[in-house]
């Protein structure tokens, strides 16, 4: 099906030094288990040997990949090259925690072929960092952002969080200003999501603090978009901004256009054709499966054409580029506009979407309601 779309590879490193109270990614603090994990990971790669070829992006995320040693990371990439056809100028990203970034680590990263680094700075405000329970300080955040440049990185991304209880728009814009002062190529600005199963989510549900209402969320969202566009960044996805589309995350875009991807490590998801499957969200189960010679897959779903359509629609509407009407028709055997001309016209008049040059795409105000837009 997705014959022309080149697959990407995601590797989930399931360790963190401590657990941030808002985070619902799968990770544990037993870092001593890293050798076992790397062992298992390498076996998992062998199980998929040459099945996703070629590959033009690798994303090492987590968890906190920067907790691994340069040797361990090098080992991972060697195994990747051994088991998959990694194209020459592939985008290879690592996620890093500001507290872990020293010059020698960064230089090693360059040496082993990592060409993109995404730094979880989250904020340049001490209070906000405190509320988020991060283990780094503003000072560390600042030097973490400066360091990769010195080490020769030409593609640096920053993760920032807004809409944190108590954080006014002014505080947020200040963080943004400080962020762009380093001229990162990429920015991810996430509105804080209070997941019910996280400690912060529970405190919120217990009424310990209140979260910004919808109006304020909207203001945060629009101000962020305007501010960064003004500063020369393209708002190319709901939460993502790039200084030119050549700096947009190639890997992440695969998620939004139904490209195939292989996810390795506990809890990682994979997608190919009309199948999606995901690994055990438990380190022990993951290892046990692998050591028994099985894929560590917890569940596989086969998507119907309607489900694929709905996904293509809602994922596409998250991006500035939008959805190619022709590709949509070709891939999902249905005309996106048919029977909906009236409502699309209304949405266009209201300034939520535009239909131009064969694409249906959201405006910034449309991006803010992309989920509902996809229900039309």
């Amino acid at each position, binding site marked *: 099906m997705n014959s022309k779309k080149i697959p990407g590879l995601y590797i989930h490193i399931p360790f963190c030094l401590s657990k941030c109270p808002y985070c619902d990614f799968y990770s544990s603090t037993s870092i001593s288990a890293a050798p076992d994990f790397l062992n298992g990971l390498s076996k998992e790669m062998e199980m998929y040997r040459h099945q996703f070829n070629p590959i033009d992006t690798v994303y090492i995320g987590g968890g906190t990949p920067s907790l691994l040693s340069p040797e361990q990371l090098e080992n991972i990439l060697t195994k990747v090259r051994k088991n998959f056809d990694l194209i020459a100028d592939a985008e290879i990203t690592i996620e890093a925690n500001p507290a872990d970034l020293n010059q020698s680590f960064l230089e090693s990263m360059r040496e082993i072929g990592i060409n993109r680094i995404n730094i979880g700075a989250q904020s340049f405000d001490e209070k906000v960092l405190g509320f988020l329970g991060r283990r780094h300080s503003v000072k560390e955040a600042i030097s973490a952002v400066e360091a990769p440049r010195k080490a020769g990185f030409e593609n640096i991304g920053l993760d920032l969080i807004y809409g944190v209880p108590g954080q006014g728009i002014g505080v947020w814009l200040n963080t943004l200003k400080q962020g762009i002062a380093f001229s990162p190529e990429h920015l991810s600005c996430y*509105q804080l999501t209070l997941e019910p199963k996280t400690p912060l989510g529970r405190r919120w549900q217990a009424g310990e603090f209140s979260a910004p209402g919808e109006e304020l969320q909207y203001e945060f969202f629009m101000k962020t978009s305007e501010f960064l566009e003004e500063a020369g960044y393209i708002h190319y996805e709901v939460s993502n901004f790039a200084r030119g589309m050549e700096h947009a995350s190639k890997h992440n875009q695969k998620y939004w256009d139904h490209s195939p991807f292989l996810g390795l490590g506990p*809890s990682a998801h994979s997608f190919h054709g009309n199948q999606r499957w995901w690994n055990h969200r438990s380190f022990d189960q993951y290892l046990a499966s692998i050591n028994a010679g099985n894929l560590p897959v917890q569940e596989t*779903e086969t998507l119907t054409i309607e489900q694929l359509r709905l996904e293509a629609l809602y994922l596409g509407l*998250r991006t500035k580029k939008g959805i190619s009407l022709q590709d949509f028709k070709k891939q999902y055997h249905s005309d996106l506009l048919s029977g909906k001309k009236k409502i699309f016209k209304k949405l266009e008049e209201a300034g939520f979407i535009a239909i131009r040059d064969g694409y249906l795409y959201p405006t910034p105000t449309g991006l803010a309601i992309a989920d509902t837009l996809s229900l039309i």
Partner: protein
Amino acid sequence: MKNIRNFSIIAHIDHGKSTLADRLIQYTGMVDERNFKDQILDNMDIERERGITIKSQAIALPYHAEDGEEYVLNLIDTPGHVDFSYEVSRSLASCEGVLLLIDAAQGVQAQTIANLYLAMENNLEIIPVINKIDLPTADVDRVIEQIDSELGLDAFSALKCSAKEGIGIEEILEAIVKRIPPPKGNPEGPLAALIFDAQYDPFRGTVIHCRVFDGTVKPGDFIRLMFNQEAYKVEEVGRFLLAREKRDRISAGEVGYIFAGVKTVSDVHIGDTITLDERPCDKPLPGFKEFKPVVFSSIYPIAPEDYEDLAVALEKYLLNDAAFVYQKDSSIALGQGFRCGFLGLLHLEIVQERVEREYDLSIILSVPSVRYRFTLKDGSVMFVDNPAHYPNPLSIEKGEEPYIRAMLLFPERYLGSVMKLCMEKRGENSKLGYLGPGRIELMYEMPLAEVIYDFYDRFKSITQGYGSFDYEVLDYRESTLVLVDILVNGEKVDALSQIAHRDQARPRALRACERLKEEIPRQMFKIAIQGAIGGEIIARTTISSFRKDVTAKCYGGDITRKRKLLEKQKKGKKRMKTIGSVSIPQSAFLAVLKSDTDN
């Protein structure tokens, strides 16, 4: 015949009718413990869930009395709601006596009195029974005093029981035998049997429940239903044990059932008389009334393609509910549907619930209406129960609406607020009486439309649950009527139009707007909701659009989860009706009518 007793239990709702029936059934050994289900006569799920008896039921209890004789006690269970008071009166007409059940903690309530009147009209022996004496809040002396002063009955004759604990059950059975007279009648005379219920059996057609007053009926006889003048050949007769029990005949004094190849229950009229085709009785039994629906509403399928299924569902439903009437109807906003008549709001809700549940359909009901009468300038008279058929206002000479007499019972301390409510509801000709110390009986004549609006809920909340209410339909009275329309984004939602008294138009419209605002979820566009009489806007409100809903993160591990969420929302949206590009949930249509006095 001297060993037959026909009786009913009558009570205000929740005073323990179903529980006592259970106990009598158990005591007389009709069911063993293993097969026993609570509220055994309430067969339908909906009856058990709502705790109200909707259909009449009958059961024959074998009883070995103290005098050494074997008796058959026919218990006829009656519906427990004012919507069904005609059915109650026909069930009572089939009996010689009643147990008038009164909750020892609640005392006499409006339906206690209304039911007592029905029993008296039928000259029945009345045995007052004080139930729930096990409750710590029971005040038996006060109830005895009420039986004497408020009901005018012999308080010494009252029995005391706890249906729940099974106390005093034998005394009740003995009193039924000793105090309720045996039926009279001539088994050799011309057949005269009263129909008190009809139910649909999917394998056999309609089963007629009746009480035979004179004569005998047996398989092979040709019977005639005197009101619709149809003749049928009897296939089977019998009496009611827990299941039907076939017999070779049923005769004067007995309660039983007849199968005679009657296709639908609507061919059978409750209260009609059955006689023999070749040897008819000279006149029908008294008390027959042709059934008249008083509340009307249109039913539409939410998805237009479900129309045919809805048609089939209503046709099938009708087999079971003779009180329900319908015909084709269509709405600009909601498409093809059916205009339906109901006995009251409860009946309406029951039909809605059963159609949705038993036929798995999503339906919308338009704002319920009563039947108005208009005299036009050309002298012609028309009845209108559908706002869509409201006559051209310029052609109207006179409008009239149905009135009822409401009977309200409540503690004196609420008098001020109840009277205020009744005046607001255009009540007139009030009559005030004291039933006992501190207990008020208030009669008001008021428009039926006000009662179906939100009267009952507000009355209950004003009297903090201590008030009770009953009504009977009186006559038509002149009224200043207008047609109130509701517009969503400038588009008239014809299914939300209502006919109202001029003075009520503005508050009604405003309330409808506010209700819609609560029920319609915010959408991508601002929504204007207006109430109007003709071109004049009399109420308005707006629902602001929402501006932000998108999830922040959506990467490999989030896609399935998010899609599942959207699928769920999409399904929810399918259950809504889109009017003027606004999705209106089903609940909004009924909510327009509901009260908001829960504060």
